[in-house]
């Protein structure tokens, strides 16, 4: 460890042929970001319309809802949990907000509260199952998923909710309020509201996970729950916290989605589970984190959003898009993970 040792250390570089450890490190940390930037450049060159401010906003708006769900999923993953119910929560919140306004003719504010309460309800069921009844996370949230997917259907006997729908042979009294719709389609400056919400939540989750003691505790639980408990962390409460954050994020996403759809679509939340899990998982590979992290999730969501938007602009046939998406993702993953410094030592083969 002294200077002599340092000299030895540098001398030992030769036996192991290291092709530019720096390059590997950089590729590891920035592999996914680099692919993202490359995509941006290629698309912007091929389609000037891609590289415009207006289009950037559209891309951002297209990832905002998924991104918000994914941020919640990320938090649930930090403790080693996994929230399979996030998509179902989005769907239930869409239905609840729509019903509140359309069927019960209540205000937008009431709908927002109802949506958030639904998110808390989902979180509550998850907490009861995982923390109180000690059902493993994956199975428990799977159960919750069915429960709330079912609830969203039952609430309306499986029908979608839209202004003027028939309820008991009379048209429903209410409709989406303007204030509520603004949450989906409105802008502040020229920036759509969902984009602003996404940005704010991303910052909040980033600060929570990286810069607060609660975030540290969440990661500790994910790393070694018993060690966390013995270090005086109330594991049950933090796991509950993680599900509450996840449920609330899904609720916020559901509210924004409902506002954008302008109606309560049965099954509206379904695509969001896979997409948000994908964004959060891709995020693991960002900046060498190798664990759930807010920044990675944002980049993961952008990665998917940019890819789809750019490919659509290039008029790539829709049936080729999934494949290219898969190929790019696999490429980025391979770059990121094979070049992990020291990985060869650690990984079990």
């Amino acid at each position, binding site marked *: 460890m002294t200077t002599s040792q340092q000299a030895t250390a540098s001398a030992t570089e030769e036996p192991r042929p290291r092709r530019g450890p720096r390059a590997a490190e950089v590729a590891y940390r920035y592999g996914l970001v680099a692919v993202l930037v490359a995509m941006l450049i290629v698309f912007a060159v091929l389609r000037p319309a891609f590289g415009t401010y*207006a289009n950037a906003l559209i891309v951002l*708006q297209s990832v905002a809802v998924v991104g918000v769900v994914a941020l919640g999923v990320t938090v649930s993953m930090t403790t080693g949990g996994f929230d399979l119910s996030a998509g179902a929560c989005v769907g239930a919140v869409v239905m609840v907000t729509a019903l509140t306004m359309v069927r019960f003719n209540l205000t937008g504010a009431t709908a927002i509260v109802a949506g958030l309460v639904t998110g808390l309800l989902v979180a509550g069921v998850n907490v009861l199952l995982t923390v109180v009844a000690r059902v493993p996370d994956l199975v428990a949230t799977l159960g919750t998923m069915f429960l709330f997917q079912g609830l969203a259907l039952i609430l309306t006997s499986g029908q979608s909710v839209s202004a003027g729908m028939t309820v008991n042979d009379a048209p429903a009294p209410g409709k989406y309020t303007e204030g509520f719709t603004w949450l989906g389609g409105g802008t502040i400056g020229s920036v759509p509201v969902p984009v602003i919400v996404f940005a704010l939540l991303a910052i909040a989750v980033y600060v929570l996970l990286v810069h607060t003691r609660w975030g540290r505790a969440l990661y500790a639980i994910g790393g070694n729950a018993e060690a966390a408990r013995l270090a005086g962390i109330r594991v049950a409460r933090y796991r509950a916290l993680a599900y509450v954050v996840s449920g609330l994020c899904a609720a916020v996403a559901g509210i924004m989605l409902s506002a954008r759809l302008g109606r309560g679509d049965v099954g509206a939340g379904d*695509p969001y589970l896979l997409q948000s899990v994908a964004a959060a998982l891709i995020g693991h590979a960002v900046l060498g984190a190798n664990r759930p992290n807010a920044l990675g999730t944002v980049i993961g969501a952008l990665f998917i959003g940019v890819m789809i938007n750019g490919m659509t602009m290039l008029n790539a046939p829709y049936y080729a898009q999934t494949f290219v998406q898969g190929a790019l993702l696999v490429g980025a993953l391979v770059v990121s993970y094979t070049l992990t410094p020291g990985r060869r030592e650690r990984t079990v083969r």
Partner: protein
Amino acid sequence: GCSQGPSSSATPATSAPATTAAPASPAASVPAKFASGDVKIALVRQLSSGDYFEQWLAGAEAEAKALNVTLQISSGDGNNDKQALNLEQAVNQKADAIIVDHGFAQTVQPAIKKAADADIPLVAFDVDPGTPKAVALSQDDHQIAEQALGALKADTGGSGDVIYVYVAGFAPLDRRNETWTKFKTDNPGIKQVAQIGVVNSSTASAVADQAKAALQANPGTKAIFAPYDEFAKGATLAVKELGLQSKVKVYGADISTADIGVMTEPNSPWVATSTTDPSNVGRVAVRAAALLVAGEQVDPALMVPPALVTQQQLRDGKITNITQLTQAVPALVTPDVAHVPWSAS
């Protein structure tokens, strides 16, 4: 795709054109913009997978090629918010015209309004555009249901146990459901003993499993009304797997090459389907959009009428695919709906 050349010349008068554009004059000169191939039409779809959407697209692409326009296709893949965003993007890119293919009114109307404000001509298929500036194109779903139910009523004599396949939330299915509800009140002899339905990426096999359960529970069933071809295929599979072909018949809606195969199989219980030709609808949509780009008049409410296709008809005509079907059932081709004067077809 389906080549339509021969059939158009044989267009009979049976297809009552809902509307016509400018009087047909085959020699009309091609507008400059179309001649140079600069016309870009954005096709914004709600869904893209499945036979119906494939054939629809094939028709649209064939017509686009014929009219020398570029189609820019995007699909929401079932995510309605994504479809709305794609629509906004098309407006943003200043397409010469936009075709909205399916979708939910509340969700796409704000974006359609943006298109209208930007003076981009727009054709909305199977979705209410909510603005008189846009052209609403639809296939007549009520009539589709009526035709299929007509066949059902004729075969059953207006009474018997029926299993109904339906999932709420899909606009065409909801419209067909309205007709079914009315049909039930009008025909008290028809008894709905079970309602089933699933929509996912493997609809047919999921519906088959449910239909089998329902058939087991209701051995007296005479017919299954499955007004969507994936439903009908599932129902057919269920009847076949239970060996009930002689007792239970299936009445469906929509058609595709694969469906023709299923209907004409020996002993197939799927006896009738009411349908438009999806590729024809796709053609009409593109024609209407092209007319709007050229500044021509288009009826703001275009309607493509359906036709009833029976198993007997298919067998007799030895029909195995859509191309042959459109030849045999000329009512499926509607060249007069949104006729483009400068086009050869």
